[in-house]
């Protein structure tokens, strides 16, 4: 009901033909904005909830909250989305567990006039927009730049992906390797892309083997959050903290101890709180009748100048953590 009122009101304003005396009893609309995450109770999405809470506090005419299934399960997430639709929300910001699984319910949501923004799902169809913290290739190049700087732009390095089938990891690494070949001719990748199966134990074992196989190794770039954890342990045990530069995606809570000993030199990630905030910010713009376009600027670090490709907004919202700013991050 409220949604229809809003739609009518917006249409009225746009056409500037409506009488100003329309629904006088409700001058300021309250938007109900839901964020639906893959899983509740895990550090990553707890952090995102902080961002959603900040968003809620920033606009007094917005009621923003976060929900999600207690188990990582596509069917449960669809259930949560259906319940929210039944309750009547104005916008959904969704981080799908399985993008295809939520398409039907998102389609229904949009038919009912709900604004839908997705995150971490750049191929989602039934959405107004998708927001990604960064473009995968740019992120891969960014990590390679740091690795090259720490290696003095020369020497052998190895790369890790969670699995040869994980798309994002391979996009990061492929872009990084191409960037190295073009800009850092004295560096050389040795071996193949190593698979860690997203497991620190496997990354550790591969790491020990690589240290034996390539005694002149100077650097490593990891992709899954566990890659630098396992590889860093291998480096630390071999006492090579100062000889080998280790950079990669991870979280301060996972690799903080290794950053402290110098075994891991730089970790990078995107802040889920910022992503949650940005996702709702875009939803609000759409709700208010604006059409967000390329170059959109949100008042958030890393989201100041968004690139729009298709329906997907890309930021440059990576966060680099080294020994210097490790203490600022607790998730």
């Amino acid at each position, binding site marked *: 009901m409220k949604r229809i009122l809003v739609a009518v009101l917006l249409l009225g304003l746009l056409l500037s033909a409506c009488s100003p005396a329309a629904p006088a009893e409700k001058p300021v609309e309250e938007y109900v904005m839901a964020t639906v995450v893959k899983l509740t109770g895990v550090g990553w999405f707890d952090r995102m909830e902080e961002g959603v809470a900040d968003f809620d506090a920033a606009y007094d005419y917005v009621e923003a909250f976060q929900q999600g299934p207690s188990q990582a399960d596509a069917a449960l997430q669809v259930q949560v989305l259906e319940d929210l639709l039944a309750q009547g929300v104005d916008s959904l910001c969704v981080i799908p567990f399985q993008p295809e699984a939520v398409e039907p319910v998102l389609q229904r949501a949009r038919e009912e006039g709900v604004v839908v923004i997705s995150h971490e799902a750049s191929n989602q169809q039934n959405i107004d927009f998708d927001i990604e913290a960064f473009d995968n290739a740019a992120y891969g190049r960014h990590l390679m730049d740091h690795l090259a700087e720490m290696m003095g732009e020369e020497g052998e390095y190895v790369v890790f992906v969670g699995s*040869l089938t994980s798309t994002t990891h391979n996009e990061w690494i492929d872009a990084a390797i191409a960037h190295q070949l073009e800009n850092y001719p004295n560096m050389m990748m040795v*071996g*193949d*892309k*190593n*698979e860690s199966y997203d*497991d*620190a*134990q496997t990354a*550790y*074992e*591969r790491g*020990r*083997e*690589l*240290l*034996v*196989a390539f*005694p002149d190794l100077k650097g490593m770039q990891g992709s899954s959050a566990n890659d630098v*954890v*396992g590889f860093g*342990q291998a*480096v630390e*045990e*071999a*006492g*090579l903290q100062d*000889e080998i530069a280790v950079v990669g995606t991870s979280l301060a*809570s*996972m690799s*903080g*101890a*290794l950053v402290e000993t110098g075994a891991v030199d730089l970790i990078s990630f995107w802040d889920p709180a910022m992503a949650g905030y940005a996702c709702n910010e875009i939803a609000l713009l759409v709700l208010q009748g604006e059409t967000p376009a390329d170059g959109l600027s949100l008042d958030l670090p890393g989201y100041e100048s968004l690139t729009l490709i298709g329906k997907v907004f890309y930021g440059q919202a990576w966060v680099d953590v080294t020994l210097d700013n490790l203490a600022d991050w607790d998730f």
Partner: protein
Amino acid sequence: MFRQLFRKHEFFIAIILIVISLTIGLINPRFFSLANVFSLLRRATIMGIFSMGVLIVLISGGIDVSFTGIAIFSMYTTVSILVARDFQGSIFLPFIISGLLGLILGLINGVIIGVFKLPTLIVTLGTLSLYRGAMLFFVGSNYYNQAELPVAIKEFARASVFTVETSSGKTGLHPTFFILAFLGFIVWYVLKYTMLGRSFYAMGGDRESAERAGFNILRTQLIIYGFAGLLSGIGGMIVGALFRQANPFSIVGTELDIIAAAVLGGASIAGGRGSVIGTLLGVVLITIAKNSLVLLGIPSEWQRVIVGFFILLGTAIPMVQSLVVQRRLAMQRDEIPVTS
């Protein structure tokens, strides 16, 4: 002398091991570097400890797939308790708690198998899922990272017996190797020199006959599964300590590699056969097969294919050899005139 050796399964495994090692060493001489040998031993240690439990279960004619479930349950629960109580003591307590938890879960397996006389594969498939599920539901599913672990566990991870400086950094032998050596010795001694060990073989050879010969089957099964559980608890704690993390989703999924190692080493799935030396050789063979592919420069896509190939090769050659021996025995039997 040579004929006797030829009939020994262990002899063949050892030959294959030497051939494979020499081949890898020729392609990449760093295979024989101290750093590589120590890191292979470290990996083989974990598999080795689990394989001892698997071995005695196989000898007794059973098959246990729940040991990884027991290991993760014991390790993760122990770490959860210690973290909650802000444990500051020595490394021995975590091993004792984890071992005891493993013993209890193993005894539950033993009771179900012994009292209800159910097939061991079905029971342990059930308890594998039950133990892991119970842990995720009742204990938790959060990952404990290095910073949260008790200090003693972190220090234990870095422990080293002989530390050597090499061209590829420091390397050393981890003390857990001696835990394996000790446990391996006990299992070897029990199997070879005690009535208890005889009862394992007797049960696996022919359960009915063993029972008629006066072996208490229920008691023997409780001992077997209890001991396998105890080893799993200790093995689980070693995994947690060596990798400095309590990840509730680790360990489970590696059971087939370990069973394969024991079978490769000559333990029979049908029961009644198997030895400590053979099993440990099998463990080393699988460890080398899985962990030398980077040294050989094999592309990532091919690594799993090669591991499968190594396992097939390792099992096929001794099988062919035992067929040859059996055929020769059968021929000899036919030649002997039947009397009486």
